């Protein structure tokens, strides 16, 4: 499948500027993507310090080399069910507006290069309960990668301004 896509990409490939790179990962049964430029690092699960009186999808904070960053449970954010901790679970540390935070996911897949032509903006009648957090959809061979809008997911970035 990968080879397939690579071929397709090469066809559509005009110049490097038209390629967007995403880090793909799995939450539940869905595959999601995040623009690679926003990804800072990937950690194995570590113990999380709970924060009292925060949203239910914020698991807490961790100490990342002296910096305190929040970790949010993506599955909880989408489907209101707690994530299972498995040996392939990972925490993806992302950076947005000079703020770092971590996202807990079930499995990290791979980095994919997708030609912009194959990325389409989300159609409104995409009746997913997290549709507003998906900013675009990419065709990846037979798969659909739902590219997440980091700003929408990490709401506390904007909520922080109100607070």
């Amino acid at each position, binding site marked *: 499948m990968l080879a397939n896509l690579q071929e397709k990409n090469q066809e559509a490939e005009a110049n490097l500027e038209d390629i967007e790179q995403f880090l793909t990962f799995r939450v539940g049964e869905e595959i999601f993507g995040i623009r690679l430029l926003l990804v800072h690092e990937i950690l194995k*699960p*570590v*113990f*999380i*310090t*709970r*924060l*009292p*009186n*925060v949203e*239910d999808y914020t*698991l*807490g*904070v*961790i*100490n990342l080399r*002296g*910096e*305190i*960053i*929040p970790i949010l*449970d993506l599955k*909880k954010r989408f489907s209101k069910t*707690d*994530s*299972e*901790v*498995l*040996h392939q679970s990972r925490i993806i540390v992302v950076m947005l507006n000079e*703020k*770092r*935070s971590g996202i807990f996911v079930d499995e990290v897949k791979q980095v994919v290069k997708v030609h912009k032509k194959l990325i389409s903006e989300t159609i409104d009648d995409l009746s997913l309960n997290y549709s507003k957090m998906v900013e675009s959809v990419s065709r990846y061979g037979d798969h659909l990668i739902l590219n997440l809008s980091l700003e929408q997911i990490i709401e*506390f970035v904007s*909520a*922080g301004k109100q*607070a």
Partner: protein
Amino acid sequence: MAGILGEYTEVFLEESEDQIQELNANLVKLEKDHTNPEIINDIFRAAHSLKSSSAFVGLYNLSDLAHKMENLLQKIREGTVEINTILVNLLFECFDLIKNVIESVAQGIKVETPFTEMIKKLDDYEKSVSGKSSEVTKAFVPDSNSKTIHISDGNKEELSSFLMNNPETKAYLVQIQLKADTQMKGLRLLLVLQSVKAQGEVFHSDPSEADLDDGKASNSLTLVVATNSSDSEIHALCNIDMMENVTVTPFEFENQTSKSEISNSPVEQVPNFSESNSKLGNQKTEQAPEKAAGDSKVVMKTIKVSSDKLDELMNNVGELVITNSGFQKIYDDLVAQFGEDSLFNELKGKIDQINRISKDLQTGIMNIRMVPIGSVFNRFTRLIRDLSLETKKKVNLELRGENTELDKKVIDAIGEPLIHLIRNSVDHGLETPEERKAIGKSEEGTVELNAYQGGSNILVEIRDDGRGLNKQKILKKAIEKGLTTESESSNLSDNEIFQFIFAPGFSTADKISDISGRGVGMNVVNKLIEEFKGKIIIQSEEGSGSSFTLSFPQALAIIPSILVTMEEEVYAFPLSEVSETIKVGIDQITTLEGHEIINLRGEVLPIYRLNRILGQADKPETVEVPVVIVNFKTRKLGFIVDDLIGKHETVIKSLGKNYKDVPGLTGATIMGDGTIILVLDIPGLVELASEKLQIDSNVVEGKLMKRTSTIRSLEMTDSQEIFKSVLSTNLYNEKLQEIKSKEKTKIKKDRSRYERKVQIVEERTPEIKIISIKESEADTIPLSNTKSTFVEPSNGVSLSYSIVESNESKTDSKEEEIQRLAERARIDSSDAEERAKAADIIKGFVEQKEERLKQINNSSSDNQMGEMMSKENIKKLEGIVNSGMMNAGMVLSQLVSKDVELFIPEIKLTDREGLGKDFRYSHEGFFGVKIRMTGDLHGNLLMMFSEENASEIAKTLLGSEEAKFEKDGKTLSEDMVSALSEISNIVCSGVMNSLSNKLKKQILPDVPELINGSFMEVIEIVKPERTKFLSMHTEFNHEGSNLLGVLVFLPDFDELVELIQKA
């Protein structure tokens, strides 16, 4: 990042903000003191600066306005325009406009509108006043040119005729002032004179050209020139290097005549005026250059630093402090593991040194952020002026302590609240002049601002001598608003009553004015206080006045705190808020009107359950709970916590940096070992608590979960599980812990599997380890293959080990064994002396050991043990308990001050009867102390003392006389009992510690129990539940045969097997 005006935006903003403040302050001063030329100069200079800097960044409209202002100011300087309220107001208007532009720029908006209206106003005013030539001209001529202009009549006539003949020309009076330290004054003035001459006709010159030519030195030059050049052109001509002042003004004959008249005839006010002015002027010239020099000196001592840079620096120093505490912890661990050492002492010394230095560094950097409060105070002069005009009250503002320094953040935030307080003072506090007169006060009211240091706090005080606060009114309003009740009010102190004015919307004003009265101002003050953890103290006397004192703690970054644990989460209470920590019995908590309270030494305090505020489950009831008592505003509160850990210096990191502010927390901090501590915000907690009372939040359940943290409180019991709330994070952590431990065991299994492959196991019959002396023993061992080897350690102590293995055919592994046991013996004894002791001990009892071997060998149960535990595990176990017993022996010998020898134990899997057989002392009388093991391994440790020796031992411990038997001579006295229990405890702990360390588990002693009787009876009581059990025992002997006691290790077999396998 360039600002909207380009790269100089920031610089411009800073400077211009300063200028505007100065302008405002100075204008107010000028209003009061019209004659002070210095102030005018300052204002002029500031306006001039503003003009050029705004032009520089492209704000041309601003520049134009400033230019117009400058003109007006110039006229003031010369005295052609007098100072009155209208003018001052006009100027203030200008300042405000300018300020608006600056503020817009600060917010990123470039204001382009030309100030045509304002400029017109200025022009109009100028025209309206410039025509007038007042009789009493306030001559603000700042230079010694107040010496009057003697223009001869002849010259005058010439001038007027010239002017008539050349209508396009104008006459100007040029006054030039050189700087005091100018070189070659005469020459310079000559140059000027000549260049002016080139532009027009000079009709008067003082000093004259001739004089200048002669070298007559003068600081100043006065010219009357007729020219068709503009005044600015003339001005430019004269404005050469080293010019202090150049003024070019249109020369008016009439003025001049009047001036000269004035100068010739001593009319009352004016000559005095001009004389005194000249004196002033003279002084001024001296002062002016000095002042300029002084300014430049001041400027060079300061550097403007962006506060971002400072923040970063502060952050780094904070990290330094945290890392230092990490060092400290490592040091503690090292000492715990390896004992005291001179090298460690050195390390400690260096650690302490670094600690000191980094603390100093931190204080130093924090001081950099300290800014004198004077900058804030100066703003208020303008405010007071405006206020007094509005309220028609006479107000005098006194400022003191302008040099007191506060952290920049506080300085930035304190402005607004102070404004509110001042407004209140003027509007509500001070009486009108008539009222004041009527009650005998001076017509002018005084508002005093004072800043000073008090202890570790900085205090800012606003005091007025007005009518004071009306306690009754406040109380009435408070009761009205439901903030207190009639009954409670009688208990309130004055300060507490006054504190009500901080309630939102609280106002006792009968009328709401534009200035105040809405009840909003005090709330703003309150917010400031809370944000910076400050306090406000109100004092007031009706009729005399009131004072509001804001106090702020000085150091804002390192906060010593009290750490508490809630389940496994660590929270910190800032020490400055904590009053005390106490233990409270559950029964002492009562409920009053739905709130829980306790009685603390007669004081009734509300008490909150921190676990509920944090969203945790309620614990199963305990008898006593620890409570942290804090100060909140003027009251005390208590928080029930799970456990207290101790004091800790925390460097707070904001949560908002990467996340957002969480209610109830001020921030987080990191401990030396990386654990995150959340720092509590007391007002936030109180708010949350009241919210939670109102909403019926879902009850959180709790259950036992495995421990994930290594934090231990002062008295926490160490169990493997702890009661935790069922919350997502806790479940996550638990699951993670499971996965991690599974991985660990998996790794270990793989490792051991690997190791086992390497070893060759030949037979499955059990082996017994024996330690015997020298060669001869080999024969007495009835078991199959035996071998003896000797190990001669290099230090000369003959530590002879000989290990007999039943089915070992490889010498190598035996060597290993020897090495291993030797290692173990050495580890547990750190110096040669003790090693020698160990050697003796081993020697001492080995003989006895052999005898018993015979018995043991015949036991059939050995086979069973072999089945249940692999050879390897048995070895492991023996090794471990070995060292444990040796430890115990060492400890015992120290306790009883006798040489103690012990058997190295061997493992017995047996049943009750078998156990009895093993001990040759089965029927003698013993005093036994049974200590139960808890934690990761259960079972019993039994320490038995022979009757004969029990008293001996006790005597040694207690110090002779007390160790007596009871009257019957047989039963032990209480003292003896405790002595023996103590010894047993210590000895058994030694064993358990050793076990714990080697198995990397937690094995802890429980309460000791004394048993008395024959050996068998004792064993009977101890008997484990299972019929088969594993025992290891050793005997402690003194001088070979004098039996001191027996230590029996009776663990739970299954658990032990499991532990050994994992170890």
